[in-house]
C-alpha cells in the first residue's frame, strides 16, 4: 500500500500540487485508518489530508480517478467477468491446462486477476515504466514489460502448439488472452505516462513562456499565458498585500504607557512600545492600449486585471487618445469579457499621451497622495503630438513613486516618435518590460519596497 500511495503522491506532485512529507505521512495514516477497500471514503480522506485549498482539491480528484482507474478497469475486463469465467470452464478441460509449460501461460489461464496485477506492477517497476517521458516511448516500454512478464516463453509455446494443432480451441483462447494482456500492459504504461509525466512538457513550456518576449507570443499560447499571468499576480499579491506592523523594539511610548496604566494607580505594569504601521500600497495603473503596443497590451491588461483582482486599492486606467477608468468594469465582469470591452472601447487607436494625461488630471490627480504608486505601461510613442509633460511632472511630485514600464528595448527609446526622454526625468524607475519574468521582477520589487 505504501508503494501505491507513494506513487500516487509522486503523481500529484508532478501535477504541481505542493505535498510535503508531513502531509504524506498524514495521508498514509488516514489510509491505514479507513482502509483501501472503500474508494469514495479513501478519496475523501486522502483529499482532506493532502490538499489544502479548493483549487488543489479539484486537481486531486481528477488525478485520483485517473490513477486508480487502471486497477478497476483491470478487474472489470479481466477474469472476474462472468463471461470469461464461462469460457474458461467450457473451453478448457483440465488436461490441456496441465500441458502448459510457460509460467505466463499458466498464469493467464488461471484467471487470477490480483496475481496478474501484482506481476504487471512489479515488472513495470523493474522495466522503468514510470520514466516514460514521451508518448512515443509507450510501445517500446510495453514490449519490454511483456518480455519481463515472460512473453518470450509464452510465444514459443504458442508456436509449438500451433505446430501440433493449428485449430485447437486451447490455442485460440490462449492467443486471445495474450492479446488482451498486451492491451492491458499498454494501457498500464499509458496510464503511468499520463499520471507521471503528462505535466512535465507543459512545465517546460511554462518555463519558456516566462522568458519569451511578449510581442512574439502567438495565439495558441494566449490561454496558457493568461493562466500564468494570473498565477504570477496572485503570488505577488499574497506575498505583499499584508499590512505589517513593525515594532520598534526598545522605544517606549510614554504617552500610551501612562494611559494604559492609569487604572493601576500609576504603577507601570503594562509597557507600550512605539510601533509604526505600514499601510498597504495604493496603486494606480495606467495602461496604453493603442495600436503601437497592441501586441503586448493584451498581456498588460491581463496583468492589470489580475492585479486588481488580488490587491486592494488598485485603480486602473486605459487610454489610446482618451483615457477612461476601468476599475469598475474589471470588478463587475469576468476577465475575457472585460478585456474584450476595453479593447473594443479604447484599443487600437492612435496614441495621444498629451490628451490622455489631460483626462487623467481631471479624473484622478486629486486622489494621488504620498502613499500612491503610479505605474505606467506604455511605449511613449506619441505620434509627434504634444506630450503634456507638466501633468506627468505633477503626478510625479504628488505620488510616492512613479514607475514607467516600457515594452520596447532601451535602444528603441527616443527613436522615431517616442518621447521617453521627456517623461523619464519624472519617473522613479524606468524599465524595459517585455516578458512575464520582467513584469514579475519589477512589480515584486515595487511591492517589497512598499511594505
Amino acid at each position, binding site marked *: 500500500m505504501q508503494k501505491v500511495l507513494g506513487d500516487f503522491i509522486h503523481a500529484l506532485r508532478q501535477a504541481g500540487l*505542493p505535498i*510535503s512529507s*508531513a*502531509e504524506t505521512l*498524514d495521508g498514509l*495514516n*488516514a489510509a491505514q*485508518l*479507513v482502509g483501501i477497500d472503500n474508494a*469514495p*471514503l479513501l478519496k*475523501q*480522506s486522502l*483529499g*482532506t*489530508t493532502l*490538499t*489544502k*485549498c*479548493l483549487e488543489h*482539491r479539484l486537481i486531486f480528484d481528477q488525478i485520483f480517478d485517473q490513477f486508480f482507474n487502471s486497477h478497476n478497469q483491470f478487474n472489470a475486463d479481466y477474469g472476474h467477468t462472468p463471461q470469461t469465467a464461462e469460457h474458461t470452464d467450457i473451453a478448457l478441460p483440465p488436461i490441456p491446462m496441465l500441458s502448459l509449460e510457460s509460467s505466463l501461460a499458466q498464469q493467464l489461464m488461471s484467471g487470477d486477476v490480483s496475481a496478474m496485477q501484482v506481476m504487471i506492477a512489479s515488472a513495470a517497476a523493474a522495466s522503468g515504466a514510470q520514466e516514460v517521458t514521451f508518448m512515443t516511448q509507450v510501445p517500446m516500454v510495453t514490449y519490454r514489460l511483456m518480455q519481463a512478464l515472460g512473453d518470450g516463453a509464452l510465444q514459443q509455446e504458442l508456436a509449438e502448439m500451433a505446430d501440433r494443432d493449428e485449430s485447437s480451441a486451447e490455442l485460440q483462447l490462449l492467443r486471445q488472452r495474450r492479446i488482451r494482456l498486451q492491451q492491458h500492459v499498454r494501457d498500464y504504461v499509458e496510464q503511468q505516462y499520463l499520471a507521471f509525466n503528462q505535466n512535465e512538457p507543459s512545465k517546460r513550456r511554462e518555463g519558456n513562456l516566462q522568458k519569451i518576449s511578449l510581442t512574439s507570443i502567438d495565439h495558441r499560447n494566449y490561454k496558457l499565458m493568461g493562466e500564468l499571468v494570473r498565477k504570477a499576480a496572485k503570488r505577488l499579491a*499574497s506575498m505583499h*498585500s*499584508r499590512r*505589517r*506592523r513593525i515594532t520598534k523594539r526598545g522605544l517606549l511610548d510614554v504617552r500610551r504607557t501612562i494611559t494604559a496604566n492609569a*487604572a*493601576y*494607580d500609576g*504603577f507601570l*505594569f*503594562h509597557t507600550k512600545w512605539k510601533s509604526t504601521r505600514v499601510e498597504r500600497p495604493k496603486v494606480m495603473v495606467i495602461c496604453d492600449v493603442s495600436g503601437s503596443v497592441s501586441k503586448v497590451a493584451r498581456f498588460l491588461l491581463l496583468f492589470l486585471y489580475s492585479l486588481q483582482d488580488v490587491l486592494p486599492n488598485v485603480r486602473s486606467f486605459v487610454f489610446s487618445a482618451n483615457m477612461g477608468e476601468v476599475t469598475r468594469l474589471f470588478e463587475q465582469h469576468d476577465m475575457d469579457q472585460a478585456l474584450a470591452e476595453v479593447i473594443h472601447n479604447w484599443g487600437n487607436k492612435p496614441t495621444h499621451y498629451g490628451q490622455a494625461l489631460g483626462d487623467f488630471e481631471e479624473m484622478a490627480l486629486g486622489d494621488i497622495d504620498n502613499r500612491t504608486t503610479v505605474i505606467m505601461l506604455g511605449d511613449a510613442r506619441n505620434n509627434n503630438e504634444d506630450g503634456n509633460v507638466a501633468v506627468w511632472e505633477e503626478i510625479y511630485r504628488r505620488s510616492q513613486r512613479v514607475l514607467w514600464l516600457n515594452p520596447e528595448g532601451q535602444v528603441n527609446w527616443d527613436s522615431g516618435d517616442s518621447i521617453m526622454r521627456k517623461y523619464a526625468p519624472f519617473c522613479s524607475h524606468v524599465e524595459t518590460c517585455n516578458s512575464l519574468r520582467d513584469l514579475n521582477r519589477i512589480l515584486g520589487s515595487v511591492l517589497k519596497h512598499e511594505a
Partner: protein
Amino acid sequence: MIIRNQDKINSPDTIKQQFESLGYICSDAIATSVYLACHLQKPILVEGPPGVGKTELAKKTSDLLSAPLIRMQCYEGLDEAKALYEWKYGKQLLYTQLLKDQLGDVMRGAKGLDESVSRLHQFGDIFYSDEFLEPRPLLEALRTEDGAVLLIDEIDKADQEFEAFLLELLSDYQISIPELGTIKAKSKPLVFLTSNNTRELSDALKRRCLHLYIPFPSKAIEQKIITAQVPELNDKLKHQLVEFISELRDMSLKKAPAVSETIDWARALLLLNVDSLDHEWVKTTLNLLLKFQDDIEAVEPEIHNLLKVATKEN
C-alpha cells in the same frame, strides 16, 4: 473525550447519523473529515462561503462528544494576552499592597541589599504562580481535564503573527509560557479553525491541519436541512424554496444566499402563513435573502422567471 465516545465516532457513517440526530445534516466529506480529525488528532481547517455552517459544525461536534466548546473569535490585533493567558495585574497589585507590612517583617534585620534580595528569593515566584494566572481560551482548552472542542473562528481575520504563534499549539498541543514553562494538554482538544478566505493562510498552518471545504449544499441536502430546522413547513413550499434558492445561487450576485438565509426565509414564510411561493411574497421578503441593495435590484425583475422554474417541477 475521544476514547469515551468511541462508539459514536467509530465510522464516518455513524458520525453522519449522530449529527443528523442532533439536527445537523452533513455531507460525506464533512463526516469523513471529522472522523479523521478525531482519530488522527489533527486540527481541521474549515473553509467555505459564509453561512454554510462552519461554526455550527464545531458546536455540533462538541454536543456529539459532550465536551465543552471553547470558542475564540479572531480579529485584527488579537494577541497572546487575549488568546492565551494574562497575569492578573490588579490582584498582584492588591496583594503587594496588603502584604507590605509582612514584607517589612521579613526584611527586618537584613544587612545590605544582597541579603534582602536573597531573603526574598526564599519565597519563590509567588506573584507569578498559577494563582495569578488568568487563562484565556487557548490555555483553557489545554487545561480542560477531559478534552474540549476548541473553535478558533475566522482565523483569517487575525494577524500573521498570531497565526505563527498558533503553530506550536496545533502541532504539539502545548504552549510555552516563559514564567511557568511549557504547558502540555491534559487531554488533546479537538480543534476547528474556520476561515472566510479574506486572506491566504500560511502554508505552515495549512500543513498542520486537515482541510475541509464546505460548499453550498446540494438541493437534496438543503431540503433535509430545512426539514430538520423548520419541521412545520409543508413539503410543497419546501421544494419551491430550495429550487428558488438554487436558481438564485446560479445568478451572479455579490453575495449568494447561504443556508442560514434559507432557514431564516423558511421561518419567515412559516410565520407569514404562506403556503405557496408567489410574486408578492417573494418580493416583500427578498431582503431576508439578499443583503445588498444591488443584488435586490438585480433579482427583482427576474422574480417571475425564477418562480416559473421553481414552481414548475411540482
